[in-house]
């Protein structure tokens, strides 16, 4: 369905523009501003979204003509990818469009990938589709283990993948989990997102997902678009999403990007945010709850302190008093804690810790 939709949207845009030209108007399209000033936090939905500020891109304006032309070139090329059912990366797209405008014109359609990347986003926003819908893929990142069957239609073939039978490596989350990808069967009580790959491997070896009947996912650091989109789809299936990261700037950032979406991807809004997500740890409170941890803390780096004080000011964070307390503790004690520290007493302690916290609903909002 998505693909037909995308094709239709591209065709309609083309027809609209030619219609404008026939009426004697310069062809144009509008796209919401993606600058900081137009990024708003939607309290109701708990998601970062773009505001109402629009930007008009019109061909007859000399300052916009080149960008307009380039955007149309991207649109035409994407239409071709979708029609031909072929995928490429945004770098592949860039190379497809890097050619001279003409023999006597010393100008290339694109001369840098940094020119084409933001225009892809323009097009996504203008047509309200995701780049994955244009058959533009990004690097795979993130792994899943658990009782889930995926039906993957790719290269003209249909494959069923059992995420519970991927051994030590897990199923690698593709960049597009919408087109040609279907969750066929799902048997889990919740989803556990673990920041670090090493920790995921530890829990996978412990058969944590089997024991707890959950899906074990690692984004391997910051969650990719595909991982976030998959989490969104799992949350739509009413599975609770628990996130387990370090207690430091990077860990918090990973959590909040999953929960509310990020500034960079605010244009995708609810498509990619999981406001239902909860933060399971590691927290400052764990230090007092688990004695051994007090000896395993690390001195917070300036970036952690800076990040913590910034976060207190974010309206989507300081609306939760639990988070305000957490961050204030960090600022006071100037300590941080890695999830790996939970392997201090014994390697399997992590699993026990997580199971206990989840059972007690002991997490931050």
């Amino acid at each position, binding site marked *: 369905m998505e693909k037909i939709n995308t094709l239709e949207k591209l065709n309609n845009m*083309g*027809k609209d*523009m030619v219609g404008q030209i026939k009426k004697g108007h*310069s*062809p144009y399209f509008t796209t919401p501003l993606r600058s900081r000033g137009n990024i708003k936090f939607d309290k109701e939905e708990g998601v970062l979204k773009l505001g109402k500020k629009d930007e008009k891109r019109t061909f*007859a304006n000399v300052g916009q003509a080149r960008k307009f*032309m380039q955007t149309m070139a991207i649109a035409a090329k994407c*239409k071709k990818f979708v029609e031909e059912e072929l995928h490429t990366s945004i770098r592949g797209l860039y190379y497809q469009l890097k050619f001279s*405008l003409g023999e006597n*014109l010393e100008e290339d359609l694109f001369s840098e990938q940094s020119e084409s990347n933001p225009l892809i986003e323009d097009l996504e926003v203008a047509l309200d589709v995701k780049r994955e819908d244009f058959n533009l893929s990004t690097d795979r990142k993130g792994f899943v283990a658990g009782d889930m069957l995926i039906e993957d239609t790719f290269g003209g073939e249909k494959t069923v993948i059992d995420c519970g039978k991927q051994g030590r490596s897990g199923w690698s989350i593709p960049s597009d989990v919408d087109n040609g990808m279907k969750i066929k069967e799902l048997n889990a009580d919740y989803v556990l997102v673990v920041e670090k790959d090493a920790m995921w491997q530890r829990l996978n070896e412990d058969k944590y997902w089997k024991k707890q009947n959950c899906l074990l996912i690692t984004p391997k650091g910051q969650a990719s678009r595909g991982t976030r989109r998959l989490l969104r789809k799992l949350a739509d299936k009413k599975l609770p999403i628990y996130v387990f990261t370090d207690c430091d700037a990077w860990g918090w950032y990973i959590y909040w990007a999953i929960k509310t979406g990020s500034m960079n991807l605010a244009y995708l809004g609810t498509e990619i945010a999981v406001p239902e997500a909860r933060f399971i740890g590691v927290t400052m409170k764990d230090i007092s709850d688990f004695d051994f941890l007090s000896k395993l803390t690390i001195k917070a780096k300036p970036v952690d302190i800076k990040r913590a004080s910034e976060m207190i000011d974010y309206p989507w964070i300081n609306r939760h008093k639990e988070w305000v307390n957490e961050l204030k503790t960090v600022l006071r004690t100037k300590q941080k804690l890695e999830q790996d520290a939970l392997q201090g007493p014994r390697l399997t302690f992590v699993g026990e810790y997580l199971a206990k916290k989840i059972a007690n609903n002991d997490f931050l909002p």
Partner: protein
Amino acid sequence: MKNDDQFSDFKEHSVAEFFKKNRQMLGFSGKVRSLTTIVHEYVTNSLDAAEEAKILCDVTIKLEELDKETGHYKITAEDNGSGIPENLMGKALGQMLAGTKFHRYIQQRGQQGIGAAGVTMYSQITTGKTTKVTSGYRGKIIEAKLNIDFKTNKANVEILSKEEGDWHGLIIETEVKDVKYDKSVSGVYEYLKRTAIANPHTQITFIDPNNEVHIFPRSIEKIPPKPEEVKPHPLGMATNDLMDFAHRDVNKTLNQFFFETFSRMSNSKVKELRELLPHINFKKDPKKLEWSEADDIIRAFQKIKWIAPSVDGIYPIGEEQIRTSMINILEPEFLAVIERKPKIYRGGIPFIVEVGLGYGGNSGRNSSGDVSSSDVMRFGNRAPLLFDAGGCAINESVKSVDWKRYGLKSMKDAPITLMINISSVHIPYTGAGKQAIAMEQEIVDEVRFGIMEAARKMQAHIQSVVKTKERIHKKKAILRYIHQVSEDLSYLSNIASFEIENLLSKLIEEKYDTKKDEKELEEAMQNGGITNGEN
């Protein structure tokens, strides 16, 4: 005072003898300047004479270098005027202070310099040779050679031939030493070019020492109105002017001389004058007026309150004339001509300022090369002022304008020719050379206002040129993208690419219609120099 010392011996010598000793007073100082002065004397004589006779003036100046080392040149000046009658030949060319222009007080170029007789004298003292004259006057063509008897200030005229003929005009051939020709700003070429600009009814031909012929063609077939005669205003007098007038006067007493000669001079004013100058005998023969007395009288003139002089005697060049001649000679990209309304300086002397501002084309100085620099052409009653620029009111005004306000980074490097003419029955020159105008505040301000008015129009022009160029540039920038955009829109919409391309081209061409701009530009140029006096 130095002047007093210089002139204390005055009565012991003839006028000619005095000037022989003080030749720098005639403008004969510096080799280049001397040559320009000589050409100036002949050309102004020709112009004034032709104007009086209501003839469209043609002047030809030919310079031949006879010996480089001694600066020996032959100068030939020819005009198509009415010639000189035989009996006046000696007076006109061989007697100091006796040119026809001294008989009346009208606005004429010849306010400067000492006349053609000065050249005869200069030729005589540098080469010992006589000056040859050919005059065609009322059907008679006379050839003569002449020189000056310094003791008596009388001409020795030797008639060489007389014949009947229709040709009218004057040819003067003379040789001088100690001069030099170059193409500098103060040289003959520049002088003639500027004279041509201020006198568009005149055709000037110049044959330079390399035998190259330069023609400054006539651009207006209209003889300027003959200046009306007005009596001089006392405030406009200098000591030597007063001496000239007095010594040529036919009245019996100074009392009568004052009353008859000057405007605004009533009986009561003469009485006032007498009271201020008890040591001067007002019953004496004006011809016997002494230099020191004349000096005192001039000072007394300044102390008396006068009714302002009339503006009737002022003849500016005219907007159309300046426009035509500047276009003719500079072919500027833009031209503004401003004629200001009459103003007065020194409490009563009227003057009129005219400003022509040429931009682009051959405006500026090194217009043939890559480097351009601005050029300021100063004129006093149409006569080019080539020397002493530093001390001149006109240059002061040019400097005082903030050119950045008019879109020029630097006035010096801009392709601009500023032509500024000040017309008055009395122009306050700074020195005997009469090449710089005194910095009277009213004159400096008035010139400044005129320049600013012209500069505003120039700025509008520059802006519209920039705008048009930008527009053309923008259009080109967009047009180059049309093909690609049409291909892609065609692929998205399934509508033929050429159809989209045609429509889109038309749309952009219309939006960035530069023809419209070019038309606007033309209009702006035409409106560029509309005369409107007040600032």
